[in-house]
């Protein structure tokens, strides 16, 4: 459905952030994209959805294909109309608008299907029904994240990109968000889930990618990734021998480098 080929991305003409990444999101699946801070996850989203220009960024190589059409560098409103919508990092809800108005803003490109989408979102998030005329800025963090996801669903997308939906949420809420993502996927929407929370993302994904400093370093079956020694150490905080705590200080610097880099 979505296929990113060899994408290279530069900010301000000098900062090379993506060094030729490729990824595929098959129809109807959840694909997880993991990576540490600064790996280029959010940049990948911007490159796909066309929001790069705002940040003085440019795609210098590679292409983005969606359902067979080339959407490299297309205008964000075109991308949305084609059926890709995103939940931005940090929620970015319209704090001064009410919940209902936020959702209506989300349905900007979907005038005909608005009431159907509204029903779907309200069914997914009963909390939003209660708070529909509240000012969005006064919602709790979890409610804001639900609103952000709901707003993205108002466009009735074929592919939903979630950029760190678990950011800054309590474990219980993370679980709730995770279940919602699964539910959305079961309703027929493909999902590209971008996360730092590897445990959460890999537990629901059908395929996982791991990104580091602008490159894809690993990809594969989530179960396999979860068992990987490096993923365990660097993303899950586990070390082979249980109970034996390990300090980064004790590791020789060349050993700190992840094995996949050497």
């Amino acid at each position, binding site marked *: 459905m979505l296929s990113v080929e060899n994408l290279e991305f530069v900010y301000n003409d000098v900062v090379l952030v993506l060094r030729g990444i490729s990824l595929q999101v098959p129809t109807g699946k959840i694909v997880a994209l993991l990576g540490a801070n600064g790996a280029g996850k959010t940049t990948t989203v911007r490159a796909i*959805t066309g*929001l790069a220009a*705002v940040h003085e960024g440019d795609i210098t190589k590679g292409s983005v294909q969606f359902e067979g059409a080339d959407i490299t560098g297309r*205008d*964000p*409103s075109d*991308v*949305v*109309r084609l059926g890709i*919508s*995103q939940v*931005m990092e940090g929620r*970015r*809800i*319209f*704090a*001064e*608008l009410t919940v209902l*108005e*936020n959702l*209506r*803003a*989300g349905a*900007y*490109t979907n*005038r005909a299907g608005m009431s159907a989408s509204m029903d779907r979102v309200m069914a997914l998030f009963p909390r939003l029904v209660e708070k529909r005329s509240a000012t969005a800025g006064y919602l709790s963090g979890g409610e804001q994240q639900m609103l952000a996801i709901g*707003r993205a669903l108002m*466009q009735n997308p074929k592919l939903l990109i979630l950029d760190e939906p678990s950011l800054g949420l309590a474990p219980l809420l993370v679980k709730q968000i995770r279940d919602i993502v699964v539910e959305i996927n079961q309703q027929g929407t493909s999902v590209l889930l971008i996360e730092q929370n590897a445990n959460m993302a890999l537990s629901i994904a059908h395929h996982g990618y791991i990104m580091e400093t602008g490159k894809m370093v690993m990809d594969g079956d989530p179960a396999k990734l979860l068992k990987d020694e490096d993923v365990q150490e660097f993303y899950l905080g586990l070390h082979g021998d249980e109970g034996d705590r390990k300090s980064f200080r004790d590791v020789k610097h060349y050993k700190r480098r992840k094995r996949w880099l050497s």
Partner: protein
Amino acid sequence: MTDTLILAQATVGGIEQFWQMVVGGLALGTIYALLAMGFVIIFKATQVVNFAHGALVAVGAFLVALTAVEIDVPGRWIPSAPTWVTWALAAVLGVALGGAAGMVLERLFIRPMVGEPLFQIAILTVGLDIVLRTIVDDFAGLDGRPLADPWGTATATIGPVTVPHTQLVQLGVTVVAVVAVALFFRSRTGVAMRATAFDQEAARAQGITVGRIFGLSWLLGAVLAGVAGIFASIFPRAAGVSSATAFVAFGAFPAIILGGLDSIVGAIVGGIVIGLAESAASVYLTGFSNVLGSGFSAIIGYVIMLLVLLIRPYGLFGTEEVRRV
């Protein structure tokens, strides 16, 4: 303003004078409110401080003079209809043309500047102001051009006050305009505009075409400015559109700052307050002209603005963290 002064002196002293002052102040205040609303809409949606807003007022009035007198829309196509209908039609056409002009200006001069420092865009609007005013001046000449409104100098007496028909129309039109703007901001496009004003990038991510919203905000601003322009250039304020029409913006400027630059409610309240203050000053402070000098009413708005800014630097209704140019 002189006209309120004249009317106020016709009814001597006491409560009559007070009500006369209030009506005159409301009439002036609604002009300021219309202007300030347009300014705030443009500022909120695009972050552009539009110094050409006064010129848009003049352009609006100029275009109405063009449609109503020069092109003579009423006489040419529907001579049998009552004058106020045909003239209103001409005025609507003129104001709509003014709105279109605002949109074209945005597309030609402001859109290419998106991403440049806001200060540069503000300076650009100063240039626009000069150019537009020059064009209007050239058309209006030294004597100005009348708008040929059907109400003329007729007045009505309501209780203790004498009100020109034009000001009654003006009050009605302003109320309609405010309601229309309020309704607009609840519509799909209006919600999109508010979303864009709040977070441009997030709005883009929803598929909102931000460029269109920019153009639309200029259209709206120019339409409101045009409506203000009509009432600023007919009886009792002026005899037509002239080189002085654009300067009504100087009166509205304190209203914008007082309301708080980014609040539409603030613009309306600010406009009315400044209008009333000017009117009151022209009636009650004339006795102090030996101390304050003559024409103190023209600067009373600025005095109020400065006093309010001392206490609330972001205006009465403004957001605290508004980015200033």
